[in-house]
């Protein structure tokens, strides 16, 4: 019990003296994780869509070659960035330019960090999106085609909205992984939460109490994101109930089909 009381008092002291450092670090972690996940999703969406563009033997040769090359590039990108550790990718990208330019050109640390996490997430998301698109019943595509939609419109209005709903859990996974894994960006000197922890430890030699604080902050961030993502999922599902229109729907043709206020319609 004594040891626990000591730990608690150490934590209180440590937090009291360095709380602003922790919070600044946590904020930087959040920014990096959220922005890079968002950019990664966009990259992944693009790559996933490219990978699923249909290509038949009847298409003209230029289109087939062009599409083949683009698809190959996407495949290589996915394999390289999914298949190597992010910590090495960060070092690789951050030090490549100075090496080749003999120190004349340097990447800014923040930019390098955002770049590495984004393209890393993008590689994972590309496969997630591809799987998401393939999981949508072929009937949805045929239904869209049967009313004259081309591939682009079919994707935009029918397939992707359903795909995105289905991959939200996976986007959440990536976001939470990024909250934690951005900690490796300390190797290029990005001052996020783990870097803050290292700095504080280096100055005060109180390794364990600081680790407890850091761990707790990480856990709070990830749990909050989990809850937010669940809320988003519910919102995308829409109301569980609908209302049968009892009045003549043809009498008024604009703006009157929502019979009950949205707030009352939520059935869950």
């Amino acid at each position: 019990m004594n040891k626990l009381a000591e730990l608690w008092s150490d934590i209180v002291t440590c937090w009291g003296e360095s709380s602003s450092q922790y919070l600044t670090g946590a904020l930087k972690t959040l920014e990096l994780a959220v922005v890079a996940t968002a950019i990664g999703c966009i990259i992944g969406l693009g790559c996933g869509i490219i990978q699923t563009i249909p290509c038949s033997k009847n298409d003209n040769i230029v289109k087939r070659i062009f599409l083949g090359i683009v698809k190959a590039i996407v495949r290589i990108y996915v394999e390289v960035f999914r298949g190597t550790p992010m910590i090495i990718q960060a070092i690789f990208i951050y030090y490549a330019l100075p090496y080749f330019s003999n120190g004349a050109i340097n990447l800014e640390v923040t930019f390098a960090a955002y770049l590495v996490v984004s393209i890393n997430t993008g590689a994972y998301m590309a496969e997630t999106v591809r799987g998401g698109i393939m999981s949508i019943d072929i009937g949805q595509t045929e239904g869209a085609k049967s009313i004259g939609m081309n591939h682009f419109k079919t994707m935009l209005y029918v397939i992707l909205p359903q795909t995105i709903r289905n991959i939200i859990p996976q986007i959440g996974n990536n976001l939470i992984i990024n909250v934690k894994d951005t900690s490796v960006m300390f190797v290029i000197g990005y001052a996020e939460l783990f870097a803050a922890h290292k700095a504080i430890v280096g100055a005060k030699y109180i390794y364990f109490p600081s680790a407890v604080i850091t761990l707790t902050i990480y856990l709070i961030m990830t749990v909050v994101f989990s809850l937010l993502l669940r809320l988003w999922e519910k919102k995308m599902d829409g109301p569980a109930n609908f209302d049968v229109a009892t009045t003549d729907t043809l009498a008024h043709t604009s703006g009157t089909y929502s019979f009950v206020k949205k707030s009352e319609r939520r059935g869950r």
Partner: protein
Amino acid sequence: MSEPILQVNHLSKTFGKHEVLKDIDFSVNTGDVISIIGASGSGKSTLLRCINLLETPTSGEVIYHGTNIDKLKGGASAYRSHVGMVFQSFNLFNNMTALKNCIIGQTKVLGKSKAEAKKAALHYLGKVGMAPYINAKPSQLSGGQKQRVAIARALAMNPEVLLFDEPTSALDPQMVGEVLEVMRNLAGEGLTMIVVTHEMAFARDVSSRIVFMADGVICEEGTPTDIFENPKNEKTKEFLSRFLSR
């Protein structure tokens, strides 16, 4: 008789070595209600899917108003917006309400305004008896209701021809009744329809022409009276004897 809307010439389709359609010829005129009947696996659905280019024919051609559909301006998409299709498995867009299902094609493909599209959508949904359910998502509807919305969605595009691919095969007898009722009314209004069906009573009473298919070829073609009362081909006789003796 005026120029046919659709004309199928020497159409064949093979999946690998399996020959599903062999040298099919037939044509569709305005106001025709053509029922395609035959045993499962005889190529009926594949023929319909070839007409709508959901399957690419291996050889032969489909002529739409005198033009080969491979050479039409706007390609397959533009062609499909004139030739609607109703599927066995409904294929309503799961992410949209019944109303939105009927609006999306009008605004995004035909370029109509939202208000105009909504008016048409409500009109057709009312016509198939689905006006009360416009806010429901497909997952909240029964099979028969889904199929009626799917018909409204196809009608909202104002198609010249509507293709039905076994529209009642996934439904229970009561729902079959409600969907056939809608189709009967459409036929009565002069809509040009090609219906792949196992509902022999519907085919006999509603069609202007019956096409009987077996093993990938058209065995016999004629008026309902010809086919049902006076079949000439042995295969037709055998197929119908099972239905008529019921």
